[in-house]
């Protein structure tokens, strides 16, 4: 059978986008020819043998993939210095292993100088972004379903994976988006290496991830840096000591987070609305707050109670928090300020602060519950920490039941960062925190030209940075820690529902008032278009574009 010989006019120089198929025209998308090749399998491909290259027919697909990958990498000139021609490559006639060595030697951020004009890989017809791996020893191509767009700006990779039709694409893509994709791949590959306990490979990958992260900008860069750092901590066993920071510092970080983006405000306002509705008509109310911190949630509730028809009730607040390390009684100070506020708006107020290392140390008897009081229990981002120790969450929930609350309000992150497999946790948290950082970028960005002075812009920058540190610590905990140290054990609403159900609670629907107030609150934020409030079976979820990030739910005893 007569065959067409491959096109002899290979273009060896960059910039000439030839529309003729590259190197192996008979391979590109012509399955009929492929079948013919298969029939004549003598172990070495005949066509290429004529040209002087020995390639096993069974390796053909592999070789073609590698060539495409190599071309993609070589065409992506990041302007960095080229590796000198002292790199050693194997005999190019053994095409498969030559390509292998090329790819192995290649650091993706450095361009390799091609050894002479006879090289095949010199034909620089642009290809679409290759799905290959990041080119380090022993790396395999990342399977398609491990890849997802890291930010909403990245285009979907799914159409490129497993692309067997090597149809030529004259467009050459050279930009940092390629690096961004590569960065995600590298992080994922590193996590996989850690999962398989291959620390040497993980080490190489994490360093590379570090380099790639620097080439990015904005949210991607920050997320990648935090994740790379956390991975490095895990690899080198430099676990962050626990507890990491003084509670005062953590509170400070959370305050900045409170100011920059709406998540905490949303949490407070929706929980307050549920509590307010549960307290309707009651004369004596008692709130037990598991997440006292700076007490930012309670002024709004007190004001709403002060202005409710029928006048304010007697308001008792019990705040629970960890000991502050230094000698200051931080909880008491917060209580004093709240008392001042209550005095100003004429609400009868009593306060008690309890220091507890962990919520499971709490005994209802300590709280001096009174018969004629209506109790509400509130927990914002505290419950998930209990999952670090077996039995703790059940103990706390039964303690809550003993308090006989009218309502229990819980706000938690909407993600599953508590799976048993490290790689899954890593993937989930990468997606989650990328979305979070994205939203931070847009809401923190508008500082310039605002009302007062340049000082506001600088301050809002500082807020943003501190918020990022706050999130970065969570990332570090999810990725680098294990066992009782890993406290950021977020779970989804469905998982919490099962837990609360089995503990004897039933859901309370958050009404439309909460929904409207939340929507209005979000509309006030710059970047407010990106935030979404969703109602999910009586619970309210706040998300960024299509991804839900935190959930407020309310519960009462069955």
């Amino acid at each position, binding site marked *: 059978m007569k065959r067409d010989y491959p096109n002899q006019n290979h273009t060896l120089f960059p910039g000439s986008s030839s529309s003729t198929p590259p190197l192996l025209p008979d391979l590109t998308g012509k399955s009929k020819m492929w079948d013919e090749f298969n029939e004549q399998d003598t172990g070495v491909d005949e066509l290429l043998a004529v040209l002087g290259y020995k390639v096993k027919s069974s390796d053909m697909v592999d070789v073609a993939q590698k060539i495409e990958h190599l071309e993609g990498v070589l065409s992506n000139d990041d302007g960095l210095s080229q590796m000198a021609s002292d790199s050693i490559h194997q005999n190019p006639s053994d095409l498969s292993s030559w390509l292998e060595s090329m790819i192995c030697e290649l650091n993706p951020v450095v361009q390799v100088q091609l050894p002479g004009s006879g090289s095949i890989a010199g034909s620089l017809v642009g290809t679409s972004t290759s799905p290959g791996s990041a080119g380090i020893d022993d790396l395999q191509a990342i399977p398609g379903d491990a890849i997802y767009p890291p930010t909403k700006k990245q285009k979907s990779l799914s159409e490129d994976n497993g692309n067997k039709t090597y149809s030529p694409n004259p467009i050459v893509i050279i930009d940092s988006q390629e690096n961004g994709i590569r960065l995600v791949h590298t992080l994922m590959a590193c996590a996989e290496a850690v999962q398989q306990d291959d620390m040497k490979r993980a080490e190489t990958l994490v360093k590379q991830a570090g380099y790639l992260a620097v080439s990015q900008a904005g949210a991607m860069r920050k997320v990648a840096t935090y994740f790379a750092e956390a991975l490095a901590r895990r690899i080198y066993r430099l676990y962050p000591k626990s507890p990491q920071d003084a509670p005062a510092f953590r509170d400070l970080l959370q305050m900045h987070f*409170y*100011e*920059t983006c*709406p998540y905490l405000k949303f949490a407070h*306002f929706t929980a307050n609305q549920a509590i307010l509705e549960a307290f309707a008509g009651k004369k004596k109310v008692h709130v037990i707050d598991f997440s006292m911190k*700076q*007490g*930012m949630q309670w*002024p*709004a509730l*007190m*004001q*709403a109670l*002060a*202005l409710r*028809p029928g*006048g304010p009730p007697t308001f008792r607040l019990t705040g629970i928090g960890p000991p502050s390390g230094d000698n200051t009684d931080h909880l008491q100070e917060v209580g*004093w*300020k*709240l008392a*001042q*506020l209550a005095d*100003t*708006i*004429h609400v009868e107020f009593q306060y008690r602060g309890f220091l507890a290392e962990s919520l499971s140390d709490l005994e209802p008897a300590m709280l001096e519950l009174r018969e004629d009081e209506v109790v509400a229990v509130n927990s914002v981002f505290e419950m998930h920490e209990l999952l670090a120790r077996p039995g703790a969450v059940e103990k706390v929930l039964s303690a809550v039941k003993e308090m006989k609350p009218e309502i229990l309000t819980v706000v938690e992150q909407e993600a599953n960062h508590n799976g048993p497999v490290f790689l899954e946790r890593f993937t989930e948290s990468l997606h989650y925190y990328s979305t979070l950082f994205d939203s931070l970028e*847009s*809401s923190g960005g*508008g*500082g*310039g*030209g*605002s*009302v*007062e002075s340049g000082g*506001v812009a600088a*301050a*809002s920058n500082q*807020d943003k940075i501190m918020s990022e540190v706050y999130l970065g610590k969570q990332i570090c905990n999810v990725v680098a820690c294990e066992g009782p140290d890993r406290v950021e054990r977020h779970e989804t609403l469905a998982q919490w529902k099962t837990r609360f159900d089995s503990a004897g609670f039933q859901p309370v629907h958050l009404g439309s*008032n909460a929904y*409207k*107030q939340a929507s*209005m*609150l979000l*509309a*006030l*934020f*710059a*970047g*407010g*278009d990106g935030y979404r409030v969703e109602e999910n079976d009586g619970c309210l979820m706040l998300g960024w574009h299509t991804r839900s990030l935190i959930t407020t739910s309310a519960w009462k005893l069955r």
Partner: protein
Amino acid sequence: MVHILENGEHFRADNREPEPEPEGFGSGFSINDHLDLLIEVLKRLDGRSLGAAACVCRQWCAIARNDSLWEHLCFRHVSPPPVGVRPVVSALGGYRRLYMVCVRPVLSRLKRRRLGGESEVVRRVWNQHEVELSLSLFCVEYYERLLVGGGRVAGDSPSSSLKFLCMPVNV
């Protein structure tokens, strides 16, 4: 000698009796002689004009700073007017502060959001939810100043929890 123009009358720096108004002012009517009328007029202004009025002269400034004017501004379109709000708001810093710190940014931000499709009434009526939200934010702001001030309400500029209201919105 320096002439200081104040209240439509001329003063001399050497403290003599103020001269009568020049003839060009016609009938001799001065709004400043009829403060109740002045207040009625100011009541109908929008926030920006009221602020500008406060810059006219000291007397007007004193009148315009009267909190009941600002209360009227905040709630004139809310029906029914909220009950029992006044002591709370006064205690937290007054209606003028409420307007400057919360109501004005909230309304303008929400108005901008709605400008998309619907036609916009200039003096929009704001609803119960917006009132509640503004009041809550106001209270949080007061508390934050308490926290920062170490027990005393610190400063006059809005605290950081409301900074998000100041930032420009991507329209």
